[in-house]
């Protein structure tokens, strides 16, 4: 593996060519200072031979001055800054180190620290593809080895290197190594870690780090560096269905509207069908726009702009997903939470949750148990303290598109933010939606009548006009609807005669059919209020029991019984459709008021005395009543 840049330097262009083909591996090292972690990282940095010049010089002088290795270089000095940090009271944190070889660039998350181990390890592991778990050959698998492995597993890292260090201190004995490996594999299987490569090494002596250990000829496997160089990288996200959180709507001018984001799963080509979540709208990709020009394809890891063939509503926080395998949408989740704040996590307390580009309000509805990271025991708990891990049920105030964390870290991982001090107080992994309807479009689930009403700036309700035939119900209802429409309200008028021509064509005028007639109309009216509409029903509806039935389908304050009170003699005199005449002549049976009774409402919300007001005045009266009841606002002006 040895990077020998100098040998290539004679032909820099060829070298640059080779560099441009390098890929990136991010890994985390786990172990305490005593395990020789700093020495190992320092040696990797040093032997990759691309340390900045000043750091190299500093290492040489520091080694002479402060080193613990006599005349040798003390590699630990390259990364140790901890003592000084502790003295200054600075939080011990994740440090990122960089080195590069011919094949790869490496980013190492180095997570020192004892007090903050969970918070730091989880942070470092969240972006790592691989974990190097260090074990001191003399001590074998310890409690902390198990703890580190559990956290690595929790954060979804599948590739493990078990680095059995300090082999020089056990005389390079194969049985010692084999025993450590056997114990570790037994434990790892319990936490679903199976992709394990165990390597015996001495970071201090540089054996099996980049060069094979001369005194460990019994070991046939790769050196640590050989393994890091050959392990496949970054194929997990690419193999998932397409996912891209919309970060920003790119609208530099009227002619361009692109949706900018970083692809976190799969790939995309122009012509692909994508679904916008949570809205559920589907469209086809028109272009993949980048500064390098339009792309024929883009893959996980790239930052791009997408445009669609249709003018669709997309905004920051939406998730674009392959229409054929969209993400789930829910507002209730089961999740594992790692708590990172000194203030404990309390169920019921509201936090902000950020997942992808979406931030919503969230609260823990239930803390099911916390997990002892040393023993993996599940313990009952009322709250989570700093560095504790728990399984919870989460409630969100808005729907969130997601994948289970095991499928996609970016669409399944989230942070929790304190609403008062704005600190990041926790991180979590979504496991599953608690509603069964994963993969069902959101509208079908939870956009309720309330949401739709609010969207329409009104309160959905039913205005039920009852009265004799010819009383003026339809005339007044029509006027009311016109007025509401003119005010920008969303309405629908169900007229008895019209309904009988369609939906209720099969019904006659027997008492049984009259009841069924009203039941159906009541149900239709209820569905329409679910849709957020103000529904006007103009029906004779002579029986109190039927009107009670209709009323019972709606919530309190959503049913306005409007009695259009016209004496029979007046209605019969008007007889706009000539029906009374036919009924009197016996040509219509069961006609209300003639040979079938009309039961006047006892407590209507609105009573209109048509002998005293005009139809126009009656309509104004209804509107005024609706304002008082809060169905429509008082001061709302519609500008067409």
């Amino acid at each position: 593996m040895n990077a020998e840049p100098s040998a290539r330097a004679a032909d820099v262009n060829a070298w640059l060519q080779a560099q441009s083909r390098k890929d990136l591996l991010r890994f985390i090292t786990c172990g305490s200072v005593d395990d020789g972690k700093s020495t190992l990282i320092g040696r990797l940095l040093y032997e990759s031979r691309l340390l900045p010049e000043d750091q190299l010089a500093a290492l040489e002088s520091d080694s002479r001055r402060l080193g613990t290795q006599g005349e040798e270089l003390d590699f630990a000095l390259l990364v140790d800054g901890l003592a000084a940090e502790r003295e200054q009271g600075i939080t011990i944190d994740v440090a990122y180190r960089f080195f590069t070889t011919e094949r790869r660039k490496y980013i190492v998350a180095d997570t020192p620290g004892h007090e903050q181990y969970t918070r730091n390890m989880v942070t470092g592991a969240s972006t790592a593809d691989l974990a190097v778990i260090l074990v001191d050959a003399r001590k074998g698998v310890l409690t902390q080895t198990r703890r580190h492995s559990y956290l690595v597993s929790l954060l979804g890292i599948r590739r493990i290197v078990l680095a059995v260090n300090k082999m020089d201190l056990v005389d390079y004995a194969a049985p010692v190594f084999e025993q450590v490996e056997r114990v570790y594999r037994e434990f790892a299987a319990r936490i679903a870690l199976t992709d394990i490569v165990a390597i015996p090494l001495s970071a201090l002596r540089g054996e099996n780090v980049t060069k094979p250990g001369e005194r460990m000829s019994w070991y046939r496997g790769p050196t640590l560096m050989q393994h890091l160089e050959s392990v496949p990288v970054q194929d997990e996200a690419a193999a998932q269905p397409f996912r891209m959180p919309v970060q920003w709507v790119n609208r530099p001018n009227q002619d361009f509207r692109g949706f900018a984001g970083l692809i976190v799963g799969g790939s995309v080509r122009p012509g692909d069908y994508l679904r916008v979540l949570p809205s559920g709208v589907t469209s086809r990709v028109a272009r993949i726009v980048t500064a390098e020009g339009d792309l024929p394809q883009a893959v996980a890891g790239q930052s791009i702009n997408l445009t669609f063939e249709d003018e669709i509503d997309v905004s920051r926080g939406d998730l674009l997903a392959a229409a054929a395998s969209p993400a789930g949408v829910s507002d209730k989740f089961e999740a594992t939470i790692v708590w990172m704040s000194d203030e404990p996590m309390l169920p019921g307390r509201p936090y902000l949750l950020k997942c992808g580009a979406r931030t919503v309000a969230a609260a823990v509805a239930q803390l099911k148990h916390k997990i002892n990271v040393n023993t993996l025991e599940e313990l009952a708990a009322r709250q989570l303290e700093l560095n504790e891990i728990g399984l919870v049920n989460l409630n969100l105030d808005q729907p969130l598109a997601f994948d289970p964390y095991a499928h996609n870290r970016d669409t399944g991982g989230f942070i929790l933010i304190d609403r008062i001090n704005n600190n990041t107080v926790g991180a979590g992994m979504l496991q599953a939606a608690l509603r069964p309807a994963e993969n069902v479009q959101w509208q079908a689930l939870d956009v309720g009548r309330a949401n739709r009403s609010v969207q329409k700036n009104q309160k959905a309700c039913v205005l039920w006009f009852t009265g004799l035939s010819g009383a003026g119900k339809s005339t007044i209802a029509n006027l009311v609807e016109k007025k509401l429409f003119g005010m920008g309200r969303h309405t629908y008028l169900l007229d008895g005669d019209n309904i009988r021509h369609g939906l209720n064509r099969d019904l006659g005028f027997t008492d049984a059919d009259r009841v069924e007639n009203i039941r159906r109309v009541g149900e239709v009216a209820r569905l329409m209020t679910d849709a957020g509409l103000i529904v006007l029903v103009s029906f004779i509806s002579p029986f109190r029991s039927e009107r009670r039935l209709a009323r019972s389908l709606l919530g309190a304050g959503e049913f306005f019984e409007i009695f259009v009170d016209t004496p029979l003699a007046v209605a019969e005199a008007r007889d706009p459709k000539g029906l009374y005449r036919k009924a009197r002549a016996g040509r219509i049976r069961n006609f209300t008021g003639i040979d079938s009774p009309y039961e006047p409402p006892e407590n209507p919300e609105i009573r209109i005395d048509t002998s005293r007001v005009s139809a126009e005045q009656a309509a104004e009266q209804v509107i005024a009543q609706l304002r008082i009841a809060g169905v429509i606002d008082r001061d709302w002006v519609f500008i067409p």
Partner: protein
Amino acid sequence: MSTLSHLSRLEAESIHILREVVAECERPVMLYSIGKDSSVMLHLALKAFHPGRPPFPLLHVDTTWKFRQMIEFRDQTARRLGMDLIVHVNPDGIAMGINPFVHGSALHTDIMKTQGLRQALDQYGFDAAFGGARRDEEKSRAKERVFSIRSAQHRWDPKRQRPELWRLYNTRKAKGESLRVFPLSNWTELDIWQYIHQEDIPIVPLYFAAERPVVERDGALLMVDDARMPLAPGEQPQLRKVRFRTLGCYPLTGAIESNAESLPAILQEMLLARTSERHGRVIDHDAAASMEKKKQEGYF
């Protein structure tokens, strides 16, 4: 399925960071220091907001002691790209007549850069400032966050720095607080040079070797960029072929002798230098390295 190159990944990550700030902050600004890292950061911003322009201005906190070629390059770059450029000079420093030759680099840096930056951020009400700092620059920077929160007094409180998991950045802040954001956090110096080469990004000519008038002081080569440079009795500027690895105020920035007149030549020189330095060659650009350090401590 082709694997993305490491530079493509770094580029995508930086673009993601740039966009996140623009999406979530009210009034971002890009600190433009004219150096190679700023050139890369600006190039990434052009890509991030294509086909539009980056929706924020550039801010240069001018100490009045920059190389003349840097100032020319700055103005030319802003013009060429149609970017708004804000140049801020600390008027207090001018009134005090701050001069690095007289007052030393620490005071000069504090007043002209650190104080100047705070003034500019307050004056324009910027709530997020992009900086080109990298984690590989120094051991102490290795744990710096990508999004670093500062108090209303621009102070950095280590206890308030937030854990950064996955690609999730917490940009929330109280009124008066602001963010320093480092899109190049995960880039190394070598990545920067490779990317400049790959993308053909314009950089200040001072990075390339040329005959320049220099004087040698305490092992460092200082360029005599204008008449304000006091010369010791008998001290004569000599024409030597030099270039700069980092750029700052000319009295505080050491040159190195070099024949590298092109990017490949610079890279070749860097790589050759590494191998020989491991055999104990004296480092001849301490001034430049410590300048970088001061920038981090004070400026950021």
